[in-house]
């Protein structure tokens, strides 16, 4: 019997079923340019401590179907340093991954089975055209984001098992491994206000731009594209991408976008934001937080939080 046969017989080759959102006490974000860590207090909805450390170039190269981490030792070392500064007091660990490593799709269904496993299999089958790898290799999580008469809209998030295993390996031994795994942009969604008008979220990270359009508290559009070079050199490209999204939503979905929320990490100077503002023809607004997630931060960490910490604010905001 071959290796796959043995794994199947031992129950090791079975499809892994994902859970639902759990509030973490300790969150780690791994991005190509940095590692951000935060200690959270979910009950008080506060970020208690946050720290960021630059990651050596080339140690993390996000991809949906290739190896992402080229030097796990360097990533673990960086994570260890920043964790020590932030202070890990135990509890559940949350992992935020680069958007590029994860595939997100909006799917339409007439109905889905009540049985979660069957529904997951159906969503995965429909999502296969978005995946550059075999659906059997994917780990999937889905959420119903829109429900109308005879129509269901589902947001599916999938990651290749081998890719996720690399990220989980970085966190191995930290509070028993991650209990929550999300792409970074998903963690920003709870910060968006419930508005009937259309709103565009632009999330700019090293190497990637994700655009999400929401209307009437429903996700209508999701697109992630990779970017070459730094933010300054991509400012015009980001502007053009944003303009394309606005036009698509207006023409195809009939959504008029009123607010453009811009979350760039690290924060970008005015000369980067200027061309984007010019392209979209609207003011770029920072993500709002209608509570004080950074109220418990010690002095000196507030700037770090403003620059990198919005996904962590989104995690504690998701509880309400």
């Amino acid at each position: 019997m071959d290796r796959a046969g043995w794994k199947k017989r031992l129950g090791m080759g079975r499809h892994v079923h994902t859970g639902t959102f759990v509030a973490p006490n300790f969150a780690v974000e791994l991005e190509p340019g940095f590692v951000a860590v935060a200690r959270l207090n979910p009950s008080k909805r506060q970020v208690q401590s946050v720290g960021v450390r630059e990651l050596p170039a080339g140690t993390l190269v996000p991809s949906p179907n290739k190896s992402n981490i080229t030097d796990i030792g360097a990533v673990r070392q960086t994570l260890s340093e920043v964790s020590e500064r932030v202070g890990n007091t135990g509890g559940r660990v949350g992992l935020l991954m680069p958007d590029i490593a994860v595939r997100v799709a909006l799917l339409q269904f007439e109905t889905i089975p009540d049985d979660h496993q069957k529904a997951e299999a159906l969503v995965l089958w429909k999502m296969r055209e978005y995946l550059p790898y075999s659906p059997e290799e994917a780990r999937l999580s889905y959420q119903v984001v829109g429900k109308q008469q005879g129509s269901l809209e589902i947001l599916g998030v999938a990651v290749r098992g081998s890719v996720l295993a690399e990220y989980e390996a970085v966190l191995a031994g930290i509070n028993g491994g991650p209990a929550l795994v999300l792409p970074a942009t998903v963690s920003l969604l709870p910060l968006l206000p419930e508005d009937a008008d259309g709103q565009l979220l632009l999330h700019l990270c090293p190497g990637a731009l994700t655009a999400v359009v929401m209307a009437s508290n429903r996700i209508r559009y999701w697109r992630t594209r990779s970017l070459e070079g730094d933010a300054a050199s991509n400012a015009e490209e980001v502007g053009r991408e944003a303009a394309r999204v606005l036009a698509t939503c207006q023409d195809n979905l009939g959504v008029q976008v009123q607010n453009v929320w811009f979350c760039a990490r690290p924060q970008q100077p005015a000369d980067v934001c200027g061309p984007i503002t010019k392209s979209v023809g609207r003011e770029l607004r920072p993500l709002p937080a209608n509570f004080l997630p950074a109220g418990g931060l010690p002095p000196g960490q507030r700037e770090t939080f403003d620059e990198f910490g919005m996904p962590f604010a989104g995690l504690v905001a998701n509880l309400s």
Partner: protein
Amino acid sequence: MKITLNLSPAPSARDRFALVWAIPATIIGFAVLFFLGRATFQEYRDYRVIRDQLAEVEKRTAELHNEEAALRRKFDDPTNRDLLHRARFVNNLIEQRELSLTELSTRLAGLMPQDAHLTGLALTSPKRPGENYMVRMGITARNEDAVETFINDLEDAPDFKDVSIVNQGFQEQSAQPDQVNVVCMARYLPGTDINAETPSAEEPKTNSQ
């Protein structure tokens, strides 16, 4: 917008209940361990007691074997062997002198002539060591000759000594006027070789009347 997504594996039933069951399982485990430990200790203590007892018994057995060997050596000594033979001889004699009333009755029946029969038998045990049993017999005979024959045979018998007639009488008013009643006594020596006996040559005359 509230999100419910999570790419982390759902905790299995084992994960969910592991902590719940961990404490009772640990307590039960410790309890079982405690009882097993106590039982083991008790078994070990019993084992040690039995081992000591066994050692004691083995030691005693060895001592008895030694004593037996010493006695055997002592008995193998020529002087003691002679003593042993004598003791064996004395024991045989004692065994032979043991009285059996059945044997005595059978013996007397064998000595009784055809015209006489035994009407009474009394046995007196020896009062002092070295004395013999005394037998008192009542005999009724058809005529005096039969009594005579019996007395003679009794005197000739090696296991009866000192035969004496205590009294003798006739029943004149009976249907048989010659009928004789005799009470006699003799010393009885059980275990004596009776082959030396010389039975009476004369057959008692039977009274045809």
